[in-house]
């Protein structure tokens, strides 16, 4: 990579032009902000789509422009946007880019040009994704799982022609972008750590992002392969996944394909994808809890091992999404056992967060509140996962609202809490100004209480048997009338919580524009990014001298120390 050379030399030439500084920048911090803003914008599209769905579910028949077809299209786009284009992009592309070089003490990523390319390719994938709204037939409505045959057979589901093709194209482009990013993050962590920054002195944020990047590198190929085969099935009449079928009275000339094969490929990507999202959030939350509780993280080594264990086991559990798919039923035994084993490292993390807080000195500012919110929603989300992982308990709950509640709390709300916490926490460093604490707290309270009010009742709906991905429940006699009331309630709360996110946007914009000037280290944190000579750090981060690391990142409240924190750069003697 000849271009790697240009920006990592010791004598640093900061680009001066507007374009090279803010648009086609190779500075990891600028790229991080580009990723973050793009992901948030597309995330708001996803949020808006969820509003439309909730309007239909809460007030069926009141909104004529929502019909069964576009309901499914909103649903599919909402899922895809949130999981891939918001959560994955912001956690790896946003936080990964910003934090890795600063936290391990280097000037930039190993391959800055590749890094810039990764962002622009991601932007192309986003454009392709949203373009699907404007093609004949609209975006695909086959669910974010894209299961064939319905996703690709003409007339079998909405958007089964151009919508699905565009989405697969977009995903393939995203995979390319993610792979470029992943190669960069992993190489940077392994190769460019500053003197003294051993692997076991890295902050848990870096550990989470690092392991998630490895997961992404190994999981994305499955999505790519499945996607390409699906695309060929759609465009050229191949039968990778399409058996002999008769759609709406028409016999199609396909033969021998197996829809379950796609499900295996999809979930071989899809399950690690869950951890790609949650591991960085876990890492970020660990650092937030420790910093704002002024206490070392409890069981650092156990935390690192459990991140690695979750990732490793995460590759052998994929078919727990397929317990009633018609696959060989004996697989159920293995995938149930492997799945619940993941509960152990996940539980270790939860215990260690609580033990980190125990006897701490909790400064309950906005980032800390979101981190605590993460712990709470992760507990309920993780515990309900035990219903679904235990194969026989999954049978009645599968594809009901119980599942919807579970994954929204554990990877939707939890991950987004980690993101909110992280954004507030590092905002002063990235922008050099403070956000409004009062608005931030209001944002937290509405979002935290609201999330529980939205998703907790869904567990009840699931027990009652309510199937997910239904446009309407009219005419199903066996469901008690309580369901309608619940749906109205959930919809109203969802509208309020969605609107509250504008507080967050306003807070960030106002803070960046008019906020109070931030100190270099407002949280009195130990990690390297708070020790930069200037705030926000310039291109190249460190001035003339790279920092040297002398200790682990969690020296908070050491007895006999003059302050309640000792930065990683402080040598052992002092």
């Amino acid at each position, binding site marked *: 990579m000849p271009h790697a050379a240009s920006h990592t030399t010791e004598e640093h030439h900061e680009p001066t032009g507007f374009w090279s500084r803010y648009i086609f920048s190779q500075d990891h911090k600028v790229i991080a902000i580009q990723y973050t803003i793009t992901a948030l914008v597309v995330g708001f599209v996803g949020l808006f789509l969820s509003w439309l769905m909730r309007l239909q579910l809460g007030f069926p028949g009141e909104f004529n422009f929502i019909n069964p077809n576009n309901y499914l299209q909103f649903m599919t786009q909402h899922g895809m946007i949130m999981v891939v284009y918001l959560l994955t992009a912001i956690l790896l592309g946003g936080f990964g880019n910003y934090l890795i070089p600063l936290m391990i003490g280097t000037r930039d990523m190993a391959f800055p040009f590749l890094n810039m390319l990764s962002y622009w390719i991601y932007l192309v994938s986003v454009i392709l994704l949203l373009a699907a709204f404007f093609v004949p037939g609209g975006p695909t409505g086959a669910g974010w799982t894209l299961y064939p045959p319905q996703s690709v057979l003409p007339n079998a589901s*909405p958007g089964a022609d151009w919508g699905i093709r565009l989405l697969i194209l977009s995903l393939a482009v995203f995979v390319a972008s993610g792979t470029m990013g992943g190669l960069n993050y992993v190489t940077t962590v392994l190769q460019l750590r500053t003197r003294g920054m051993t692997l076991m002195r890295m902050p848990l944020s870096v550990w989470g992002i690092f392991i998630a990047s490895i997961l992404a590198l190994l999981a994305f190929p499955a999505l790519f392969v499945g996607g390409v085969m699906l695309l060929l099935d759609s465009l050229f009449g191949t039968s990778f996944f399409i058996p002999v079928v008769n759609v709406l009275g028409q016999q199609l000339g396909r033969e021998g394909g197996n829809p379950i094969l796609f499900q295996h490929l999809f979930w071989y990507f899809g399950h690690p994808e869950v951890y790609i999202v949650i591991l960085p959030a876990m890492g970020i939350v660990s650092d937030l809890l420790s910093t704002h509780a002024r206490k070392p993280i409890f069981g650092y080594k156990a935390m690192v091992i459990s991140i690695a264990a979750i990732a490793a086991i995460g590759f052998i559990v994929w078919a727990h999404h397929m317990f009633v798919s018609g696959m060989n039923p004996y697989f159920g035994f293995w995938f149930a*056992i492997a799945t619940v084993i993941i509960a152990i490292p996940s539980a270790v993390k939860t215990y260690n967060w609580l033990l980190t807080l125990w006897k701490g000195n909790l400064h309950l500012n906005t980032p800390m509140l979101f981190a605590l919110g993460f712990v709470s929603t992760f*507990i309920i989300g993780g515990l309900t996962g035990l219903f679904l992982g235990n194969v026989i308990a999954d049978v009645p709950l599968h594809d009901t609202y119980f599942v919807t509640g579970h994954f929204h709390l554990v990877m939707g709300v939890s991950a987004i809490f980690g993101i909110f916490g992280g954004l507030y926490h590092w905002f002063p460093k990235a922008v050099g100004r403070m956000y409004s604490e009062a608005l931030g707290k209001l944002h937290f309270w509405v979002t935290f209480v609201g999330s529980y009010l939205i998703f907790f009742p869904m567990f009840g709906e699931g027990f*009652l048997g309510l199937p997910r991905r239904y446009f309407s429940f009219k005419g199903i006699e066996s469901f008690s009338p309580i369901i309608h009331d619940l749906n109205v309630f959930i919809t109203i709360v969802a509208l309020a919580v969605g609107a509250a996110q504008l507080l967050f946007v306003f807070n960030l914009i106002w803070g960046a524009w008019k906020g109070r000037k931030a100190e270099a280290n407002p949280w009195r944190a130990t990690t390297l990014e708070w020790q930069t000579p200037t705030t926000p750090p310039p291109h190249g981060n460190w001035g003339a001298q790279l920092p040297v690391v002398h200790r682990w990142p969690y020296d908070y409240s050491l007895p006999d120390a003059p302050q309640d924190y000792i930065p990683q750069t402080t040598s052992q003697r002092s």
Partner: protein
Amino acid sequence: MQGILLAIVLVLLVIGAVVLTMSGALWLPTLASNWGAIDNMLVITLIVTGIAFVVLNLILAYIVFRYRARDGQKAAFFAENHRLERNLILVTALGIIVMLGPGLFVYSEFIHPPQNALVIEVLGQQWRWSFRYPGTDGKLGRTDPKLFAQNAVGIDITDPVAQDDVVVHGPLHLPLNRPIIIKLRSKDVLHSFYVPEFRAKMDAVPGMVTRLWFTPTKTGTFDLLCAELCGTAHFQMRSKVIVESPEEFERWLQAQPTVAQTIKK
């Protein structure tokens, strides 16, 4: 202030969850099949995870209340306790074994249908269900997806065994207290056979035959739903299940026309 508020919210969350669960308003619909064991598994899982939920959230509430930052308070310094960590792992593993162990036995039962069961075929297509019963010979005739071009259910009408089969598109009639094996086929896309009161659920996959089994234990009418997204009218892909006494069931079946009578060769 924030600490006290968060503690109160967390306690309210725990109380709310417990009250809601105890009230039973949001619990499974009344069981109408033999799968009481599945319900028991859900109850066991609910108890184990419920305890963890209550304990962990209350600890969190206590922490944010007790250790919220105040003047003169200093955090303690401790970063490890191997014994505690080991014990917590043991307790977690125990909880998991309690849930998973019995679950695997029930699952084993779930995938091994009894020998004497009545085999009924259910065919899903966009967006309705059809049902096929064996006639007097007790056997279902041969089917082939390629034959959907010839007749609506893809049945081989040259097969002698198929002649007395009965195909209905209306409600699924089932005899009480007799094990039923449902063989699932699909004509077009993925569907899923789902009767909430029976608990059992299985996808119908085009190109293959999947199956599930249960024994209806209550007479009455139930909704048959589709639980796998199958296109625009997925939410309307419904039928009824009528569970009746074996005599009534036989009488009903006898009155239906056979394949030989309804499908032209």
